[in-house]
């Protein structure tokens, strides 16, 4: 059983159902791996091994009594942005170094109800602000494919934990690419669904109009399994939208059945490719892998059509105006008064605020708070915030126009593969890494990243697929059919190959 962690979610479910192994054994296997190997990766901020063991045992008993929930007893872990009752919830920040949440996020409750077992809380960029997981107060995360490289961010802990074989799937969140980019850097599949598909209640806000939770796994099917319990309208989130409730796993299986023996299972699928996504900053190896993947898609029956989308540089500027503006307000509640970090011996109220926030927030968070505060200030509001909102509507319009001629849009997920830890990129360069992913958040569209090969240095490369509103099933099915005929998603990281 030394390779349980290399099994897919579907294989784990079958194994549990067929009693090849128990949830207790499976859980123990992952805990053992985490204990032995996470010192190299630093993907967890908090371990919940003891409760996980108890839950696994309970899951086995329930299964013995006929409980048929498919995900019963399957381990996972949460990005530390989701509030978990009775468990430290840090959001990667010193500001919340002591915050034991008194409540569960809606998705945490829902995943609990599905019978899954949480092994702990995963590292992330502080308040989800960053693209390499180096802004975490709890230390940088190492890429399991090459420990000298970053795992991406902000969901770097989620990506690294899955890629290292510490959990089969993990929750994550995506404000400007924070699921897709680390999935790309770590050779995983990760999906950010349509804005409003998943409740944000209990997910600590970075930029409320852009934040959306999603799932990460090694394959589209893994993502589908975890995504299923996460979705649905939540009366506690006014922006969660009442919509049809798809069954993703069933939809993926139906797509495979419908394709049958057809050598061109994606016949009829129009993939939009925009030249704006293949610009000068794009790494050659990444471009080659992405173009090769598009050839594979064509070989599977898809047609490539040219589309136009908004100039990514304009999109980038819009994002880095709106996201910090919302963040500057969202992070005001961290003031040292009611919870979280408070400076020592404040002399007065202003001192309490100033030092608690200066000492509790890291530099990237402070930079975005300041940028956002500036953008919202009297006299600048119209020039920055209002203009950015107008551009945002144009970005939506451009996507709508593009989707008139295609079913999905494909692009590189990130301009490069994972870069080296400690490169200490200047912020503007780091922001450029988000250039292909942020338009999706501004438009509220669903998108995923799937692995499409490795660089000559053995680092993963990701392809992004963008879908139309509410069409997560379409996206996941497309990637799933691709994965039925390719093996990029079956490659394992160095750490995943290690046995303990």
């Amino acid at each position, binding site marked *: 059983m030394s390779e349980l962690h290399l099994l897919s979610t579907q294989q784990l479910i079958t194994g549990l159902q067929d009693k090849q192994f128990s949830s207790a054994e499976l859980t123990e296997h992952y805990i053992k791996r985490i204990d032995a190997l996470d010192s190299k990766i630093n993907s967890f901020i908090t371990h919940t091994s003891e409760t996980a063991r108890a839950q696994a045992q309970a899951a086995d008993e329930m299964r013995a009594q006929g409980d048929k929930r498919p995900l019963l007893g399957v381990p996972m872990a949460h990005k530390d942005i*989701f*509030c978990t009752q009775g468990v430290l*919830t840090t*959001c990667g920040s010193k500001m*919340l170094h002591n*915050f034991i*949440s*008194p*409540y569960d*996020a809606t998705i945490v409750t829902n995943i609990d109800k599905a019978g899954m077992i949480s092994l702990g809380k995963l590292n992330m960029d502080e308040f989800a602000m960053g693209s390499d997981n180096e802004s975490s107060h709890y230390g940088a995360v190492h890429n399991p494919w090459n420990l000298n490289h970053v795992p991406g961010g902000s969901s770097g802990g989620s990506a690294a934990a899955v890629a290292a074989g510490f959990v089969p799937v993990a929750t994550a969140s995506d404000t400007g690419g924070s699921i897709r980019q680390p999935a790309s850097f770590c050779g995983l599949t990760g999906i950010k669904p349509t804005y409003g598909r998943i409740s*944000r*209640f*209990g*997910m*600590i*806000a970075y*930029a*409320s*109009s852009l934040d959306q939770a999603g799932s990460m796994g090694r394959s589209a099917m893994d993502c589908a399994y975890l995504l299923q319990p996460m979705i649905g309208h939540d*009366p*506690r*989130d*006014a*922006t969660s939208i009442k919509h049809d409730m798809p069954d993703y796993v069933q939809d993926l299986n139906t797509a495979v059945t419908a394709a049958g023996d057809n050598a061109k299972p994606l016949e009829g699928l129009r993939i939009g490719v925009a030249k704006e996504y293949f610009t000068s900053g794009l790494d050659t190896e990444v471009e080659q892998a992405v173009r090769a993947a598009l050839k594979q898609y064509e070989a599977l029956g898809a047609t490539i059509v040219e589309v136009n989308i908004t100039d990514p540089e304009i999109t980038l500027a819009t994002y880095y105006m709106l996201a910090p*503006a*919302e963040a*500057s*307000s969202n*992070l*005001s*509640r*961290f*003031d040292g*008064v*009611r*919870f979280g970090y408070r400076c020592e011996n404040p002399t007065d*109220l202003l001192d309490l*605020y100033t030092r608690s926030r200066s000492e509790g927030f890291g530099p990237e968070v402070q930079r975005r708070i300041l940028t956002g*505060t500036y953008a*919202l*200030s*009297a006299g600048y*509001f119209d020039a920055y*915030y209002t203009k950015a909102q107008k551009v945002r509507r144009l970005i939506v319009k451009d996507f709508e126009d593009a989707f008139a001629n295609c079913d999905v849009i494909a692009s590189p997920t990130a301009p490069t593969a994972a870069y080296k830890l400690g490169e200490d990129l200047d912020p503007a360069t780091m922001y450029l890494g988000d250039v292909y992913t942020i338009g999706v958040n501004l438009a509220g569209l669903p998108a995923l990243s799937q692995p499409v090969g490795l660089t000559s240095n053995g680092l993963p490369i990701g392809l992004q697929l963008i879908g139309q509103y509410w069409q997560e099933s379409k996206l996941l099915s497309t990637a799933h059919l691709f994965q039925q005929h390719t093996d990029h998603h079956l490659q394992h990281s160095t750490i995943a190959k290690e046995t303990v």
Partner: protein
Amino acid sequence: MNTATTTDNAAHQEIVRKELFVDGYEVVIGIEIHCQLNTESKIFSSAPTDFGHEPNTQASIVDLGLPGVLPVLNSGVVDRALKFGIGVNAELGLFNTFDRKNYFYPDLPKGYQITQMANPIVGKGYIDVVVNEGDKNEYPKRMGITRAHLEEDAGKSVHDAVDGMTGVDLNRAGTPLIEIVSEPDMRSAHEALAYIKAIHQLVTWLGISDAIMAEGSFRCDCNVSVRKPGSELGTRTELKNLNSFRFIERAINREIERQIDIIEDGGKVIQATMLYDPERDETRTMRTKEDANDYRYFPDPDLLPVRIEQHTVDSIRAAMPELPVARRARFEEALGLSEYDARILTGSRPLADYFEDVVAEVGQQDAKMAANWVMGDLLGALNKDDKDIIDSPISAKQLAGMLARIKDDTLSGKLAKKVFSALYEREGGDADDAADKIIEEKGLKQETDTGAIKAIVEEVIAKNQAMVDEYRGGKEKAFNGLVGQVMKASRGSANPQQVNQILKELLG
């Protein structure tokens, strides 16, 4: 007041002018009222809004602004705000958005207040008020309302609970408010007071707010400036959180005097927020414009715009109660009440309802009698016991039952007072015919049988020959003495008119 003639108006204008100009300065006042809406739960959370509980026991994770929580609008506040909008004849904002007002304060848990900046629920409207109401120099005036918007209340800082520290009580955080912003239409403290009282009456009348000033559920900020007539508006100061009608008037007058003194001394009024100190009867600067916040308003991304359907407005409009001004006019015109009676009886909606319930039973022709009993005996007794009309121990039907017995001569005025007292002590129980029971049990029925009264009168004449002689000798007063004897002999039950008549007949 609505029928004032042109001459009256001219006279009023003269009074107004005299009152309004202070040392040759014209006063300009605009008012912001923060009025809590009386929903059971808060505006964006399900926590209860009850007043007066232990600190921080009425605050949910949403009110505490914990990481990850989100607001969801309580639809009850929308209905109440629409009622208000209709009540002040306003354009209604059918497209509502919510904005964040960002500032740091310990009693503001999220570091921002959710309010309506760009698209408020109530637009331009007005309210008709009577200034100096009840005085001989009263006059009507229409006060403009700029807008009214929904927002959440903050918590409270408690400065005396913990030694050397400030405590924060977040029970009030998230209580729904409607902030009502007036036009700068008020020209004196009396006008300001009349406006505030009219708004206060309206919100309680509509049943959308408890509006208890002492509990902070109705708070007034007054923007005051002075100028020489015809010149530009002067620099204004804002008097914050005035929490009683009495203080409002005094605070405004002190502030007017302070500003005029500054200008007369050659100085300039500085834009500032002022606090009124009732003990010293003076206004003090709390903060000046230099310390003013940049609130960095922007649309709250957690709340989607709320579109109010026309049919929602229509059904609220259809269910609107008759408003005080209209009801008073109807009391005067349809029921023939005096202006004074109509004003008293429309002082509050429960009182007006009570009165109308009585009238519904006794008939419109006896509205005046009903008014006299409600305003006189009933309100008198309730006032003495410090009770409100809704706590009246006598139901409207019970009172009407008693009035019916006065009308059919079962009761004389004097007997009726006895029955009223018994009703007030609830001796007749809950039944609508409690008055009849009391009359029956206590034998308070008026004697109207001419023969029986005549027998008593004859007996009294026989026993009081001296008085009879006095009367016949021209002493009119002696007649009253004889009436008294008859009433006494009948133990108060004889019909006084009949007694008078028969006595006169027999005495010749």
